């Protein structure tokens, strides 16, 4: 570079990192605080809430929801949505249930892989319709939500697979643990960590954020948007399939209605966890925390002897609260940036631009 002496003086130094990350951290901190408060209040009212069995229940419930929420977060980050996860869970649970019913000797690992495969295929169908059919994800997954569920009903009819019909090894997996931690929880943690690291530290993950942040810019910068969309939906589908196996293991009873209405809890977990509905921001850690919060609320309702029917209303209220808070934070951020811009403009003092 030779001509740099013509460059004018450096214009400004902006510090964005500190306050920005503090905003993001505040969200996850907020959930943790809410959790602590909730657990505290419930325990005061009923000390049994902190018993080993109760904690185990919460963690097992959370693992299924968290696996789903991680997949949902991946999709929402790309500015899409996957409403079909509950139906995919049902289809996978019934498929795997039938599979192990017919092949009692099947290792659990194979069952898990089968669930992943069933879900992955469902996710790929969603992705192909979104990407190559140019149909908005909302419409596609609302449609496949009913299509997958309907297909499960067509196949299963009124049939129910009960615990007696499932092999002992398969059901035993629910109680088995690794160093005292239930396998379900281990699997969920592995999923969260793997997805979290992938999204934060790998090109693919960063490209997913980029696609959600600005789809046009993503195309212009040469990101393989089609491939990444396939990856995102296949991930969400596969994780829903995995969750289906966990569901079958945990509850031991599977019929065509398994996981009905789960999509609301899953979207709620992601949104409450700070995954912005319009893509580009949020983390799977947040989504997993959201899942933990929702599950804990459900369990504390039971412990506090409050009508279970409140659960769904609370989920709805939390969604509204979360997006309203996001909006508020975004507004405040924008205002802060604007004031800063005005200050710097005042410092710069004009220009020579009437033409």
């Amino acid at each position: 570079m030779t001509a740099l002496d013509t460059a004018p003086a450096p214009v400004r130094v902006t510090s964005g990192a500190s306050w920005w990350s503090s905003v993001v951290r505040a969200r996850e901190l907020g959930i943790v605080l809410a959790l602590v408060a909730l657990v505290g209040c419930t325990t005061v009212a009923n000390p049994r809430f902190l018993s080993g069995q109760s904690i185990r229940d919460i963690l097992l419930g959370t693992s299924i929801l968290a696996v789903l929420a991680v997949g949902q977060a991946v999709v929402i980050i790309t500015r899409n949505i996957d409403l079909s996860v509950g139906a995919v869970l049902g289809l996978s649970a019934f498929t795997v249930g039938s599979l192990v019913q017919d092949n009692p000797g099947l290792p659990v690992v194979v069952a898990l892989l089968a669930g992943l495969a069933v879900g992955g295929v469902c996710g790929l169908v969603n992705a192909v319709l979104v990407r190559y059919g140019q149909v908005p994800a909302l419409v596609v997954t609302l449609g496949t939500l009913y299509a997958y569920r309907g297909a499960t009903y067509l196949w299963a009819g009124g049939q129910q697979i009960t615990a007696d019909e499932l092999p002992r090894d398969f059901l035993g997996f629910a109680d088995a643990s690794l160093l005292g931690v239930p396998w379900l929880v281990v699997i969920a943690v592995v999923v969260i960590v793997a997805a979290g690291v992938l999204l934060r530290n790998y090109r693919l993950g960063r490209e997913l954020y980029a696609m959600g942040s600005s789809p046009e810019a993503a195309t212009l910068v040469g990101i393989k948007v089609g491939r990444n969309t396939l990856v995102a939906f296949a991930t969400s589908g596969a994780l829903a399939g995995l969750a289906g196996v966990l569901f079958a293991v945990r509850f031991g009873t599977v019929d065509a209605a398994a996981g009905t209405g789960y999509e609301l809890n899953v979207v709620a977990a992601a949104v409450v966890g700070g995954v912005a509905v319009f893509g580009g921001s949020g983390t799977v850690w947040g989504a997993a925390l959201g899942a933990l919060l929702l599950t804990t609320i459900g369990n504390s309702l039971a412990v506090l002897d409050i009508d279970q029917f409140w659960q769904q209303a609370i989920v709805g209220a939390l969604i509204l609260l979360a997006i309203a808070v996001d909006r508020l934070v975004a507004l405040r951020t924008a205002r802060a940036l604007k004031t800063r811009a005005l200050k710097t403009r005042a410092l710069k003092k004009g220009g020579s631009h009437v033409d």
Partner: protein
Amino acid sequence: MARPDATPLLEVCDVVKSFGAVAAVRGASFPLYAGEAHALVGENGAGKSTVVKVLAGVHRPDGGTLRVDGKPVDFGTPGEAKAAGIAVIYQEPTLFPDLSVAENIAMGRHPTGRFGGIDRAAMRREALALFERLGVRVDPARPARGLSIADQQIVEIAKALAGRARVLVMDEPTAALTGVEVERLFAVVRALRADGAAVLFISHRFEEITALCQRVTIMRDGAHVSTDPIEDLTVPEMVRRMVGRELGALFPKQDVDPGEVVLEVSGLRRAGVFTDVTFQVRAGEIVALAGLVGSGRSEVVQAVFGVDGRDGGTVHVDGRAVRAGSPRAAMAAGMALVPEDRRQQGLVMDLSIQRNVTLPRSGALAGFGLLLGGAERREARRWTERLQTKYGDLGDPVGTLSGGNQQKVVLAKWLATRPRVLIVDEPTRGIDVGTKAEVHRLMSELAADGVAVVMVSSELPEVLGMADRVLVMREGRVVAEIDRADASEEAVMFAAMGQGVVA
């Protein structure tokens, strides 16, 4: 400067591109040499943006070839164009608002470290090194959201440099920049040029072209007109080639005796945007709001019309107060606003010409609350004909018209409301020279008929040619009021830039 012997870094040979029945580019050819800035000029609709998109790999040409280092290439995707060393900087930068500046620069080719993961420290170092090379300081860790357009363009250039781009295509990069920012951008571009990059520069501003470029290609109606070294062309000659004919009088201002005060704005204030704006406009007067881009002119007229709210001050039309924050109240008082951004604010592109023209008046045109089409069609035909708008059918979507005819539809839409106060914001931006003259004549006629006209314009000749009075804004305040007799380029510029700074 002429280098007929050298192989161009990039050569565009007889490129053809059509969309449906419309031929957007019919044979564009020009060479881009290393170390040269090359201007591409032409009226709106001449096909410049299509050429840019072909170079960017967004559109595939229907015919003709692109050559990089003399070898023919075929870009199927933007990624392939990037890989060939072509970087495009659009008028509206395309950054990822949620991601950090460093990551925006690295996107698509992140530096990787252990286990194939991203090396964030290297990413940050790279961004800092690039900004140092460009002579600017932007925090690499901050998110791109909230950066000024100028800083966003700097980040785009850093992106291009990081991608080892040798050809830099800039599509009207200066349209939204202030003078200081333009200077900084030019300094960066000159440095790149000196470093052996080829630059394709698109602009409507001739002084920028002559200041920066060594070669000019002129396009008209999608066809290639000429390519010459800049010193072989005068500005009037460039204009002649762009429009293909000699120009008549651009500013047919009629002299009128101003009547009563129609519009009275006093103490208008909007926190952080403008403050203490007071002015009056009489019937038959054309008052121009001049000033730098970003001085608050558009914001003032939008607050006057009620599209934006206001934090203080009053607006009166014919002595009656107009409610804040309500375009409907402003319209009822007799105001009309032809906004700055035709595509986003002025028109609903997907709706028909007829629906667009009658949109503000649909209530008045309804009989017993019903709109059965006849009244709307008559009204639309009457006003579009009066403005000599060229169209196929009133039912065609307005997006199918050329820029100039679109602007006429916007004008028709607002003239149909028979305004007492007509506010026009950049009335001739991006329209061809012929239509420009028509718009000026129209404004002049309206004033002669007793309409009070407020005109926001960045084109100094337009301001001086059309206005009875010029109000100059700087940093959200009206800093000068200059009568037609005293108005000169120097006077307006001096006021607009404030004391001490001379262009």
